[in-house]
């Protein structure tokens, strides 16, 4: 697979959220606005890229038996770094993402990539893989965030985009809206795939 492929596969073909159904909790929880989605996406991308690189770097040193604990330690360290930095630098955003920053540690995408990719490939490819997957995750969050924020709040990135006569569909920014949006978006992608294969 070409390097370019490694970079782009995460965006659509192997999108972690829509195609692999991974990392669903943060996706649902923080996609109530574009800003939250973006913040979460970038935070996770940072962890993903760093842990991919480090793991790829040390993969030869680590015996198979303790692979997973080591990965977890590496990931957890970066998560803590992101957690504290965001708390200091973007306090408001950190507050609204809440619990889900430390929870990046169990985000199935990250451990998944460590296992499936970084533990087997060189640094360069792992870096690209991390960026690509992170990008895919971020895009998914932003897409859902956009849908939910526009419908549920009439705004995009906090800026009102629909006239005042529009009565926002409040439910879209409530929990049910998260499930419904992701369900329909996934259905839509399936529909596209089905049409393509016909």
């Amino acid at each position, binding site marked *: 697979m070409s390097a370019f492929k490694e970079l782009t596969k995460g965006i659509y073909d192997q999108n972690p959220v829509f195609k692999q*159904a*991974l*990392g*669903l*909790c*943060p996706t*649902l*929880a923080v996609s109530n606005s574009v800003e939250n989605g973006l913040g979460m996406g970038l935070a996770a991308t940072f962890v993903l890229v760093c842990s991919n690189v480090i793991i790829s770097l040390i993969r030869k040193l680590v015996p198979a038996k303790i692979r*997973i*604990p080591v990965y*977890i*330690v590496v990931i*957890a*360290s970066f*998560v*803590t770094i992101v*957690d*504290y930095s965001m708390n200091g630098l973007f306090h408001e955003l950190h507050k609204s993402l809440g*619990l889900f920053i*430390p*929870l990046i*540690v*169990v*985000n*199935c995408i990250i*451990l998944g990539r460590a296992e499936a990719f970084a533990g087997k490939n060189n640094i360069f490819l792992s870096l690209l893989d991390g960026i690509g997957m992170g990008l895919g995750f971020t895009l998914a969050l932003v897409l859902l965030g956009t849908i939910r924020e526009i419908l549920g709040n009439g705004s995009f990135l906090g800026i009102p985009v629909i006239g005042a006569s529009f009565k926002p569909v409040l*439910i879209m920014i*409530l*929990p*049910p*809206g*998260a*499930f*419904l949006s*992701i*369900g*329909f978006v*996934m*259905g*839509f992608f*399936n*529909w596209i795939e*089905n049409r393509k294969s016909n």
Partner: protein
Amino acid sequence: MGVEQLFIIAVGAIFINNFVFSQFLGICPYIGVSKQLDSAVGMGAAVVFVMTLASTVTWLINEYLLQPSTKNLFFYIFSLDEPPDLSFLTTIAFILVIAALVQFVEMVIQKSSPALYKALGIFLPLITTNCAILGAALINIKKEFTFIQSIVHGSSAGIGFSIALILMAGIREKLELADIPKSMRGIPIAFIMAGLMAIAFLGFSGLKLGN
């Protein structure tokens, strides 16, 4: 007051702030293991068990190892001048402890009750990477629950998760016999269903239990 408080925490964690429908924790296993009722019941039982245990252990770790208080064991053992603040290790410590705990539970069950192991065993490894467990542990700390409250919260959250999981599994088994449009089959319809269930669970919002 004490017992009433516990009751409020329990009902809150099961119905009002249900992990799946309002906290968004444990969604991956919720979608992944809800295809069949039998495995949903097994998974549910495993989660309740591990979540209770994890709440207990992480609370102790936080209280006696991580928090900068006079109860901190490092403070005693190394007779430090001042209690160390190790709270930046919370995430690492918790996740490692949970992973180890699950391993340990798996071993104990395997040795002591092969039948139970057969029923729960396959679900245990899945649980390690389940954010609901870590989530419960972190919420216990964030809400500054006491030891007993943490245990009650942990087990109730597990029960709430299991209820959501089992209801979903029942419905998904039935949806196997439905004419769902092709593109919506599988995970998409599971999400739609979860959304509709979350709408129904809105009925519990605002339950006024205490005072």
